[in-house]
């Protein structure tokens, strides 16, 4: 039983047709990496799953919660389902999006307290557990402005984990980072993968995808071109578009792991 099941997803931005009949599923404990050129629709696909982007059409199922989108406006009932989908998906953004007016621990306990109505005394140990997991216990009382990019992203991961989601969505989590800070974030993500966290990752880090992913999805022009295990995708891509993309990206950025 897949934890995420996307079926026949369509997305238009005005005249732009960004997603064309996209279907994808993610099994529990699976790590799926989505790769592709910028503008291929991979981030939009991810953002449609928790409805930060409203699909034009299609079916989204997360942990047995289903939203069927047609041309009509969302009903109140659908909005409620969407909120429950968001509770079961943790999202990590390219730009971190930590709350700058709250310190690190407050960033982590905010949603559990506000959304899940958890008591502060219950939320704090939980938050501390995940803060330790990303190795930032010593930054507990800092404000985000005083953290490096890599630290911010690790806090953002801990913030998402503190909501104890069923699946984690990563939207190019290392693209806004200085090269020397990328490693610490990828290390945290690798550890999550080892622990069996279900992850859907949009990334440009080919070495990470090759090492960690169970399946790699290649997208181009709003369509899923090819899906397969990393060994196959990276070594013997079936589709010429995938081959071309990988040749170019691996030539410019040699995968040094």
């Amino acid at each position: 039983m897949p934890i995420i099941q996307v079926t026949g997803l369509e997305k238009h931005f005005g005249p732009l047709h960004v997603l064309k009949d996209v279907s994808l599923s993610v099994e529990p404990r699976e790590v799926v990496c989505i790769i592709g050129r910028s503008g291929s629709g991979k981030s939009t696909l991810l953002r449609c799953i928790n409805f930060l982007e409203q699909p034009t059409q299609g079916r989204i199922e997360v942990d047995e919660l289903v939203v069927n989108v047609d041309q009509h406006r969302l009903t109140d009932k659908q909005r409620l389902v969407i909120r429950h989908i968001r509770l079961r998906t943790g999202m990590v953004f390219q730009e971190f999006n930590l709350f700058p007016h709250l310190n690190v621990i407050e960033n982590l306990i905010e949603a559990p307290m506000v959304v899940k109505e958890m008591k502060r005394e219950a939320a704090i140990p939980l938050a501390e557990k995940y803060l330790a997991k990303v190795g930032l216990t010593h930054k507990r009382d800092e404000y985000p402005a005083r953290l490096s990019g890599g630290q911010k992203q690790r806090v953002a991961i801990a913030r998402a984990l503190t909501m104890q989601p069923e699946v984690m969505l990563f939207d190019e989590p290392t693209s806004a980072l200085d090269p020397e800070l990328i490693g610490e974030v990828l290390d945290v993500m690798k550890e999550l993968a080892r622990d069996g966290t279900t992850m859907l990752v949009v990334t440009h880090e080919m070495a990470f995808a090759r090492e960690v992913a169970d399946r790699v999805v290649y997208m181009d022009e709003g369509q899923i071109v090819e899906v397969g295990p990393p060994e196959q995708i990276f070594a013997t891509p079936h589709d010429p578009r995938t081959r071309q993309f990988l040749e170019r990206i691996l030539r410019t950025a040699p995968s040094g792991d």
Partner: protein
Amino acid sequence: MEATPALGGASQAQLILKQQERAQRVFSVQVVISWAILLAVLVFIFSGVRIQIGPIDVQTIQLDSDFINRAAPVISQGALQTLVISAASILCASVLALLTALGRLSHIAPIYALSTFYVSLIRGTPLLLQIFFFFLALPRLGIILSGTVAGVTALSLNYGAYMSEIFRAGIQSVGKGQREAALALGMTQSQMMRRIVLPQALRVVVPPTGNEFIAMLKDSSLASTTGFVRELMWLGQNLGRREFRSLEALIVIALWYWGMTIVFSALQSRLERRTARGER
């Protein structure tokens, strides 16, 4: 720069920094001295001294210090009233401004229309008219407001309209990413507003609201035109006219307004520094 012997990069930078600091200090001292001179000139103009040097014969303005001594304590009682009116008005105005700003950002047409209509109407008419309106027009409807209440009502509505733009800018200054992060964590629209957007907007809104309060301190004098508000302006003017000492009365009033403005400006900049906590 003089021919400095081969200095390390760090000490060179320190040297430049020190020079800049020194230049900044010199500038500050010069500003303070200039202020003192300007103040002295102002005091001199009202000192009543007569200066005769050759063909120059200057008589400065002579003030009735006896009247000032008697009137100042009475006029000063108006300062409290001025503060109360301004504080009450800025509070109401802030609430109105927030609601109006949210209305401006609403996708529901009637709510958007209501807030733009309100802002347009208030900004399109003079504050003085609005004060008179609440004092003189409403009694026709059987609503009789005291001068003070009419003043506070008019000031609140007026400043609320102007300040709604400040609040709107504050709310819009909170990035899309913040909203998305809040929503992705499962927050509802109103939780997102209350917990994430407004606290950050507040930081942007506080300094200009301080400015509005300082402007309000002075605009509250317009409430005196209803003739029944015993604030600074009304008390001072009345006393001055009665004894033909309006100039002296006005000077006392001016000193009060000026003094309050200076104090609140200082408070505002302190508040500004405190709310900047966690700023990038």
